[in-house]
Structure formats: structure tokens, C-alpha cells
């Protein structure tokens, strides 16, 4: 379970996914442009831990309200998939992925979390996020948030996490996503946008497309970060990803059926949902990224 704090929830409740009705002279009220003006100041982080969220209490999971609705079992637009509630009690959380994770766990004999951490620690799966154009680390109405994979052999400390303050080079020929974002009370938020999330684990490389993605990052005073990424993942894509993980044949068909059963987003002409909602939590530490 990722470390989601109360303040994040406050931010969740306070900030809506789209426009608000705040007065015109509030810079935070204006809609974000596609890109914010860049200045010299930049702060980067590298993900040191990725947490696949599970419903430790049934019906409860951190995440985002991606579709702006609290869906019950009768909601056809969400293909009758019931929304979840966050640990702090917020309703409408879209994270059907949390139902898939235990199955993936079993199917990979419990090796998934360790495999992800190993991939991060040996440099295979290093995702950096950079905040560009930062004028005030606590409050800035317009910054750019950049996602990219970086390379290098990271130093890993005795706490089995990548050490802070390291410098990495951007991985060539890999997609870079840049999106406008806001910083409010030390929390960076962006979205909705489309994001390709690179995953390299168990000898497999993927880019998971997250549609309608949201990101929230809390920047602590000791320069560590915790955050949440959410979005809708196309089911067929997830099936291909799962086939890339070494899963026994009989279990694979189970996994496939399960993926198809959790779809709650992006209905087609016949009303069949093609994507499922997902959220992952992460910890990060400060880093420097060379372009």
C-alpha cells in the first residue's frame, strides 16, 4: 500500500480535474496551457519504489476519480464496475487494477514486487520526473512536468533504495512526455493527459499507455517525494503485457479473463468497456537528469 497522506486527500478534494469557478485573479484558477514557460530552475526526482496498489480492505484503494463520477453497480458507463473508496473516505476512486494485482502476484509466484524493485535498483527501470520552470517550490501555478526514462547504474544504499542526489542521462530513443502542471502547497498535480509509462521487469520491456492520466506528487521538505499516477489502461494492451511476463499457461487464461472482466472505462459503440482504471503509488528521491 503506498504512503498516501491526508494532505493528498485534501488536495484531491480541493482540486477538480477540470476547470473551477474561482475568481479570475487567482492564478490557480486559470486553465493550464499545453506547456508552461521554462526557466532555469528545475527539480527532478527518480522513482525509487513503485507500489502496485491492492485492496487490503475490500472496496478501499488509493487512486483518482478519473471519470468524475461515483459509479455504483448499476452504472452502465462504467460497465457496472463499482468505484472504490480511498483510505481517507473519498468516493468515486477508479482503480480496477487493484483487483488484477493479486492475480498477477499469484501467477508470478509472488515475485512481482521484488522483480520491480530489483529492476529499479539495477537501473533497468528508472523513471525520472522533472519539474521545469519552477519559481516557488511550494506554490507555482504553471510548471512543466516531464516524464522520461533514464539510464545508468545507480548507487543503491544500505536501505535497498536508490541514493538521492544522483545524476542520470536521459535514455535515447525513448518517449518523453511533457505536460503542464501546478504546484500548490508543495503538491504537484498534472492531468488529464496521455502518458506512456515505461515498464521494464522480468526481462520484459513495455510502455503502458495511460489515457486520461493524472499525477500527484508531494514534495517533502527533506527532498523526498511520494506520489500517485493513475489512468485508463487498454485491456488488450494489458493482456499483451501479461503474456510477456512468464505466467503458466493455465493461469494465463485466468488472468486474461480477469482483465476483461474489470474494464470500466472507454466504452465502444456497443457499450463494452475497453479499458480499465489503474493507479500506482511511488516513492522518489531527488536526482539530476541530463537531457
Amino acid at each position: 500500500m503506498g504512503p498516501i497522506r491526508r494532505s493528498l486527500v485534501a488536495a484531491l478534494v480541493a482540486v477538480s480535474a477540470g476547470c473551477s469557478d474561482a475568481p479570475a485573479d487567482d492564478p490557480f484558477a486559470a486553465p493550464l496551457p499545453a506547456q508552461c514557460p521554462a526557466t532555469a530552475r528545475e527539480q527532478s526526482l527518480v522513482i525509487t519504489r513503485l507500489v502496485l496498489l491492492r485492496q487490503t480492505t475490500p472496496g478501499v484503494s488509493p487512486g483518482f476519480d478519473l471519470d468524475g463520477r461515483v459509479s455504483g453497480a448499476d452504472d452502465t458507463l462504467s460497465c457496472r464496475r463499482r468505484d472504490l473508496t480511498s483510505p481517507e473516505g473519498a468516493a468515486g476512486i477508479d482503480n480496477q487494477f487493484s483487483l488484477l494485482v493479486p492475480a498477477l502476484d499469484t501467477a508470478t509466484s509472488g515475485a512481482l514486487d521484488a522483480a520491480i524493485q530489483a529492476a529499479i535498483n539495477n537501473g533497468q527501470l528508472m523513471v525520472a520526473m522533472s519539474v521545469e520552470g519552477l519559481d516557488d517550490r511550494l506554490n507555482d501555478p504553471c510548471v512543466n512536468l516531464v516524464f522520461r526514462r533514464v539510464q545508468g547504474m545507480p548507487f543503491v544504499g544500505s536501505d535497498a533504495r536508490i541514493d538521492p542526489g544522483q545524476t542520470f542521462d536521459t535514455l535515447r530513443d525513448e518517449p518523453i512526455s511533457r505536460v503542464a502542471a501546478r504546484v500548490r502547497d508543495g503538491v504537484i498535480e498534472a492531468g488529464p493527459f496521455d502518458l506512456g509509462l515505461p515498464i521494464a521487469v522480468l526481462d520484459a520491456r513495455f510502455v503502458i499507455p495511460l489515457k486520461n492520466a493524472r499525477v500527484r506528487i508531494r514534495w517533502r521538505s527533506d527532498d523526498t517525494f511520494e506520489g500517485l499516477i493513475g489512468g485508463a489502461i487498454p485491456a488488450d494492451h494489458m493482456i499483451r503485457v501479461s503474456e510477456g511476463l512468464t505466467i503458466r499457461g493455465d493461469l494465463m487464461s485466468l488472468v486474461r479473463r480477469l482483465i476483461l472482466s474489470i474494464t470500466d472505462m472507454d466504452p465502444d459503440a456497443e457499450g463494452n468497456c475497453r479499458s480499465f482504471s489503474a493507479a500506482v503509488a511511488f516513492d522518489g528521491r531527488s536526482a539530476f537528469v541530463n537531457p
Partner: protein
Amino acid sequence: MHATSKLRWSPALAALLAVACSDPAPPTVTPDAGVTPPPATVTFNAPAPVLRRLTQAQYVHAVHDLLGEDLLVSRPMEPDVPLNGSISVGAASTSLSPRGVEQYEALAYDLAEQLLRNDARRARVLTCTPTATVDATCAESFVRATGRRLWRRPLTAAETAALVTLAGNAATTLNDFHRGLEFALSAMLQSPHFLFRTELAEPAVGAEPARFSLYSLAGRLAFFLWNSPPDDALLAAAEDGSLGTDDGLRAQVARMSASPRLARGLRAFVTEWLGLQRLDAVSKDPMVFTSFSSDVPAAAREETLSLAEHLALSRDVDFREFVTTRETFVNRRLASIYNVRAPSELRPDGFGLVTLPETSPRRGLLGHVSILALAAHPTSTSPTLRGKFIREALLCNEIPMPPVSVNTALPEPSPSLRTMRERLQRHQADPTCNSCHALLDPIGLALEHFNGIGTWRPNDQGAPIDASGSLDRVTYRDALGLSQAIHDAPAFPRCITTRLYRFAYGRHEGDGEEAEIGRLSQDFAYGGYRLRRLMSSIATSAAFRRADGGTP
């Protein structure tokens, strides 16, 4: 043994009158306005010269410079034993342990084998072709040429003959001329004439003070400036007597200063001055310092040495910048600890020059992992140790030992005593403690933002850190202010001078040498506090050539 009491040397055997010494005219330089030039002459009473054992670094340099860069010195060697924190002073007082004798013997045969069993390497030192298994003429040419380099002076006829005989007997026994030479070479490498630096005086002439023989002077110059034995050019200057003239001496010192080997002397000095050799044994608890790994101590040492070399030799600037500069050298590991972008231009050893941003809380030496980690504990900082380092190494204040039978307990962190400053209150409140600790703790507390391995932290146990204080009535708000206060303190450059003097002379300065150190210190200021220039000043000084004490 680390007693910090000042060593007092009694004057040498002969009662010395205060004798004026004259130095060659100082080089022209544009002094700061208001800085007066140093006096031309001062009194100087020095003790007798002593034998100095080669340090490990000097041994390795000797092998590489005199026998070949490609020889591997890979066997264990007698360790350097500091005395009162100084390796040079220790080298001037220690002998060889029985284990050390064994180790040098094994090394000697290993090196002889490496050199003489390889045709290309052997050709460097042996130009004649032996005519028989025993060829005294050819052996002699080898012994003379190599012995002169290794023993840093020409061998006497008797010494040469003995070694040639040795080589001949060995050649006979082993039925091989070159194998025979190995034993002669091994004898030269095990000899006290190689392992110890003998500094002999020439008999005094009239009222003039006794001076070192020219070969001894060549050795003193080379080991001081280069931390290595004299090269052929320096030996030649001793041989033809030019080293004994003011111009000849200055010419050699200028040549040596221009050589890249000057970096060796500088590094040996800085290592000794700041005690960087202790980094080998530094121990930190990985549960507390998760990003401290086994490659950090060596990297930290290299950083400090690189910066010193950069300021003193490459840029040749006011060396006081050592405590205020934003420049430093880091590899990827150190860049990570300092939370700065790793440099893009790297030396082959992975280090690169960086300039820390204006906003950086670090300046100069007091921001280096080397100092911050050494003057700390395995699990925490130690303002007392850091204050002691600044006092002793940078300001040359003597700090007495703590009295025995005193309760030195520091309270554990608690909700009412969170920061080090709060926990150290007892040192300040108790009059028994306060007399010394008032000199130490407040200064060390200025560095509390840097944890036990030198990483910056915003607070201590969640409480804000107050890094303000004063250094002998100069107040500062933080580490930057402290660094500036040290930079501006007159004691700082005088301390650098004293330590360099101690390194060059291999002894703690005595009362009779204070005037000379004062003169050099003034010269240091007069010359814009340039360290390269100070090294030359010492090397060309009349005092450096003096061999009082009556050694025949």
C-alpha cells in the same frame, strides 16, 4: 600515540649563539597594499638533523622514478607511523620493526626480479653485455649507476667493491650473471642508505653555520618538493657544486617547482596536515548513513587533495580560498552526497571540477566529506571533534587533553534535548568543561547542517539547527560565515606556514625556529598567500640549508 602536547627540542650538542642567516633576495612580487615585506634576516637555532625513514609513498616513488614506472610494488610494506599526528615527524623518529625488515627483503627480491628478468626493463639499467658469468667490469657499471640513484649519492670505492663481489659470488653460485646482479640490487634496496635519508653536514667554515652536504641538500629538496628522491639533474647539480650557490639552488628549485612532481609534495603535505590518511580507517554505521559505502573514503581523500592541488598549483591563487571556494572536485558518488549535478567533463579517474551554486551551503574544505566524516562519530556528528580540527589544524591552537576522572556523558536525544547544541549544553554550563569546550563546541556547531558523513540536512531530530556563533569575537550566522572568519583570521595563514615548515623539516618547530617561521609567514602574506611560492621560499631559504648540531 596522539598526545597533542607540543614537543620541545633542546638545542643541539654545541652551544649555539644566535646566528643571523641571510636569504637570497626574495622574488619580485606585487604585494597587497599595506603588507610589509618580511625581514631579510632572522635568528635561527635549529637542532641536529636526524635520519628520516622513507615513507611508503616515498618508497614507491623511488622505485618508479629510479627503476621504472612499470614495476609493481604490490607486497606489504612497513606502515608509516605518525608521531603527534605528523607522518614526517614520525619518519624522523621511528626505526624498522623486525617484520618491516622481512617485508623490505621480500620486496627487494621481488623488484629485482621484475627489473632484471625482463629484457626491456633490464636494458634501462644495464648498458653493457657481460662477457662471462662473472664480469666485474660490467657489474661495476651497473652498481655505480644504479647505486648512485638509489642511495642518492655516489658510492664509495669500498661500497662498490663489496656489491660487485656480492654479485660475482651470486653469479657463480647460480651460474648466471644477471641472477647475480639481482642480489646486488636487492642489497642496495635493503640498505639503510636507501631506506633512510641521511642528512650529513659539511664541516663549518669559520663563523658560518654548518651546512648540509650538497647530496644531502639534494635529498632534502627532492623529498620536500616532490616527496621523491632526487632525479639525475639534481644529483648532477650536487656533483658539480652548482647546488651550493645561491643561483644554482634557485635554478634547481625553479625547475622542480615547474615539474608535475610538485603535486606529489603538495599532496603529501596536505595529507599529513589534515590527517587524511585516517580516512582509510573511518567507520560509519550503514543503518544510520544509508548512502555511505566503502568507496566514499578514498573518493573524499581525492577530492580534498585535488582541490588543494588545483588552488595551489594549477590556479596558483591565494591559498586561503581553500576554505571559501565554491569549486571542488567530485566523482559521481560525491556529487550524489553533495546533491549536485555530476560534472560532464571527467578525468580518467572519474573526477571532475564543479562549481557549487551560489545557494549552496557548502564552501571549501569545511564542506568536504573528508573533514566532515573524519571529525565525527560512526553514528553521529561531533561538534567537539570538528571544533578541535579547526582549532588544531587550521589555526594551530593547542588543545589540552581532557582531565581524567571527569564524567563526559552526553545526554541522549530526547524531546527536550533534540539538537546537538542542546545536548552539549552541559559542556558550556560546567566550569570544568567550559574552559576548553568553549573553544571547540561553538565552532563545530556551525557545521551541524552537515551530518556525520557530510550530507546536508535541514534539521536535527526534527528541530531547527542554529549554526550561528563566533570565532574569537568574529560572529557568523552559519558555516559560510565561519569559513570566511577562518579565511580572515591571521592565525590561518600562519598555521599553514607552520605546518608546511614541519612537513619540510620533519620535526616540531622549536623556540629557536619561531622567528624563521614568522619570517616565512610574513613572506607568505607578502606573496599573496600563494602556496607554490611559499614552498619555494622554504626550499631556497638559508635555514633549509643549515645543518646545525655538529654531525661530522
